[in-house]
């Protein structure tokens, strides 16, 4: 395969983790690209749900917002937002929820709320949106993130959403019955929680990535699996699909500007 960027590898690795019968709660950005690449390649029947209420969308271009008209126009049906959160998310009908993070810890706990103290924040971030309940109601949670020491931290400043807490059976102790974060896909590697401790462990390095580079871009002491794989590089189909999707998206959004 020709050259590809770390971001492309991240998106395509995330796409591969999705199955044809998955029902995904899709966020904007990398998750949206990953879900739609999956739909346009190996998972044509995957159900994509955006929290704006659109169920079973098949957008031709990626939305800029969670509620673009394209999502509604290509959806099987569009429901009200309270129904989305009650019947579809809380009702336990979503198999995969995607989350991004401003800060992530080794147990998949996420902060997108504040940097610094909540009452007197250094940076006020957007906040959780649907994340607190996505993290607890979806069957599993996939996290995508560009590695950086200030993003992958020893201790997050705020628990926007709960991953595995302090690890181990912390979720069960809180009465949460879903699996929580089962996959972390970064621009450098694929991580999965240790079955016992729930600490994210590197299972696969993307092509050309070294252990050192993973360690240098992560704020906690990285654990590597004993048998470390190399992530299969993007296929022609995957890369072409992603790039064409992004090209269509760019053209559409620029075309949609003011006259």
């Amino acid at each position: 395969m020709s050259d590809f960027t770390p971001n492309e590898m991240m998106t395509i690795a995330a796409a591969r983790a999705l199955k044809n019968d998955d029902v995904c709660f899709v966020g904007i950005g990398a998750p949206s690209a990953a879900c739609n690449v999956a739909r346009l390649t190996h998972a044509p029947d995957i159900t994509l749900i955006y929290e704006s209420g659109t169920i079973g969308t098949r957008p031709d271009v990626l939305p800029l917002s969670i509620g673009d008209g394209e999502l509604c126009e290509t959806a099987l049906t569009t429901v009200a937002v309270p129904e989305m959160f009650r019947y579809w998310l809380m009702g336990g009908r979503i198999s995969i929820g995607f989350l991004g993070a401003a800060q992530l810890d080794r147990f998949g706990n996420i902060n997108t709320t504040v940097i610094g103290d909540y009452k007197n924040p250094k940076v006020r971030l957007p906040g959780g949106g649907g994340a607190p309940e996505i993290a607890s109601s979806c069957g599993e949670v996939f996290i995508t993130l560009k590695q950086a020491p200030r993003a992958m931290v020893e201790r997050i400043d705020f628990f926007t959403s709960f991953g595995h807490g302090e690890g181990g059976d912390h979720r069960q102790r809180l009465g949460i019955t879903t699996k929580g974060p089962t996959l972390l896909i970064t621009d450098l590697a694929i991580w999965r929680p240790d079955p016992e401790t729930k600490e994210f462990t590197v299972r696969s390095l993307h092509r050309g990535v070294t252990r050192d580079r993973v360690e240098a871009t992560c704020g906690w002491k990285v654990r590597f699996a004993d048998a470390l794989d190399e992530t299969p590089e993007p296929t022609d189909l995957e890369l072409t699909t992603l790039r064409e999707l992004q090209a269509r998206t760019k053209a559409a959004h620029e075309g949609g500007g003011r006259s």
Partner: protein
Amino acid sequence: MAKFLSLADAVRQNLHTGDTVAFEGFTHLIPHAAAHEAIRQGIADLTLLRMTPDIVYDQMIGMGLAKKVIFSYAGNPGVGLLRRMRDAIENGYPRAIETVEHSHSAMAQAYEAGASGLPLAVFRGYKGAGLPAVNPDIRTVTCPFTGEELAAVPAHRPDVTFIHAQKASAKGDVLVEGIVGVQKEAALAAKRVVVTVEEVVPDFKGLHPNLCILPHWTIDAIAVVPGGAHPSYAHGYYVRDNAAYLDWDGISADRDAFAAWMKANVLEVGPEVFASRVEGLK
């Protein structure tokens, strides 16, 4: 009973200093024209209620109208942060604001509870999350059947809700379609409801029976403002002005640039400019 009014009169008669007000619309149909009218009238000390404060509240907060914001996601969708809201929270500029923060699920269900006349929404949520520790309005109730502890938040009961909709009938019934968001709930939860619409049609004959329609007797005032959701969009009328959302990041990054933009594009114009803003977006 719905009265057809100019936007200026609709805002003046229904929104008062110190009110709790929701301008709702989930990405789609955001009532920007109504918010601009509130800004022009300088109605201040408002408690602003909205799932996604978005540009519409970034502008109101930046103009100093808000004393409190109740919300669940304070971002510029697909672009980044809300810089005026950040400036208010981080630096108290142009005034300090109080924030009450929820999850989307809680906000949506709090509107739903308000529409249902209930004092609270009960749901499964916030498990392990940090918000209950910083928001005293997040409490719990215990299920008397299973013993499970569930989250509880107070119902939203705004003094006024503003929404933008596609159509009103001559009688004042209102149709919302496409991504319907929380508009029906936000309207029914409010003491007073003001709707801006793209157009008025004689009646709603021939529509599918199960569409989202607010009867005229649930609405206080209707103002016809074509393009009134811009830079948000109106399904069937015009598309989202993505470029304006991208531009906002720069405008809002600087206090003076923001003030100049608001003067030129809000304070010194009227609601009629919205029609021209969506000309190229059809």
